[in-house]
């Protein structure tokens, strides 16, 4: 009988507590999503070809990348006695010893040829100047080039090259 009273009392208390619980509501909701991506590549990839004659060295640079157009500039290293002088269509300079290609080099395109001409100003007698150029000697003419990715303004116009000099 005592146990029965406990059961009834417990049920009554639970009923009273249950009546104090707030009402639960549910609401209509929905959710959706969409995602996408675009690849970019900024590292320039180029190759250089050169043709040599006894008096000239001609170079061309090709943009072999997949996405990135580039700005190009080149510089000639040679002995001072050779008086090197470079020129070519769409090439300008030298400015600070650099020859700048004035056109944006698009993917797959090649520059106009840059031809370096040199003429030996003076051939020294071996006793006259041991450090100077002597008849029969060979010398090197080196052309180096640099590229940077082309960046664009909001309208899609190419911005000037930033060589980080």
């Amino acid at each position, binding site marked *: 009988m005592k146990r029965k009273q406990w059961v009834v009392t417990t049920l009554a208390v639970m009923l009273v507590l249950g009546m104090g619980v707030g009402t639960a*509501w549910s*609401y*209509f*909701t*929905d*959710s*959706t*999503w*969409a*995602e*996408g*991506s*675009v*690849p*970019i*590549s*900024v*590292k320039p990839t180029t190759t250089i070809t050169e043709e040599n004659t006894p008096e000239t060295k001609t170079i061309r640079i090709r943009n072999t990348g997949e*996405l990135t157009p580039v700005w190009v500039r080149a510089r000639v290293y040679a002995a001072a006695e050779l008086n090197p002088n470079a020129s070519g269509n769409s090439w300008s300079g030298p400015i600070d010893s650099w020859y700048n290609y004035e056109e944006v080099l698009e993917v797959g395109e090649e520059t106009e040829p840059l031809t370096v001409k040199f003429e030996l100003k003076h051939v020294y007698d071996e006793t006259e100047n041991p450090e100077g150029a002597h008849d029969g000697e060979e010398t090197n003419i080196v052309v180096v080039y640099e590229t*940077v*990715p*082309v*960046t*664009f*303004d*909001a*309208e*899609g116009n190419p*911005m000037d090259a*930033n060589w*980080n000099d």
Partner: protein
Amino acid sequence: MNKFLRSPKATIVLFALAVILIGFGGINAIQAAPRIESLTFRAQVQLTNVNVAVVENGSIVEGEGELLTDLAKSGDFQVGKTYDEKLSARNTQHPSSTNEGEGIPEYVRVSVYRYWTDENGKAVDLDPSYIKLNFVTNTGWTIDEEASTPERTVLYYKDIVPVDGDTNLFADKLTIDSAVATAISNGKYQYDNVNFHIKVTADAVQTHNGTEAMTSAWGRTNE
């Protein structure tokens, strides 16, 4: 009489009466069933619902790889150039609904995620702020600054969106900052051969008891 009622005989008598009553009732019910058949009433109950979709440049998009498809296909995306990227949300009719105009007005919010990936997956070292999506906030959209991070921007739309109605644009232009072309670390271009991603999630709640609905679903309102 009391003595009779307390005796086992009374129990047996009452039990017998109960059986008889149930039996008669069952017999009547069996006899009645073939004679009476009520009219058939058919009722169909369909709950209304809210539905929302992401809209890019006028078209609904949904799922992975469905955003930025035109830019990805062009193959000549240019760093620094500004492209049109018009994003909004639409209150759509449920796809399975057969009746026009079904649905209810709703409140909408969107969460926009911007991030980079490389060959190894998500590139957490790359700066999502270089993915410049221009958010339009003078057309009913408000940025929740507390919930927003450099990678995620949360916007709430103040106005009610009717069925088949569109919100105003919450974004309209996309640019990749030119700085990615000169970001070099340890002699390596940091943003070379990477993908930039944009993900938009749109959420909607009913307008009836809207404040309570938003608080329940989103933890806050659009105020």
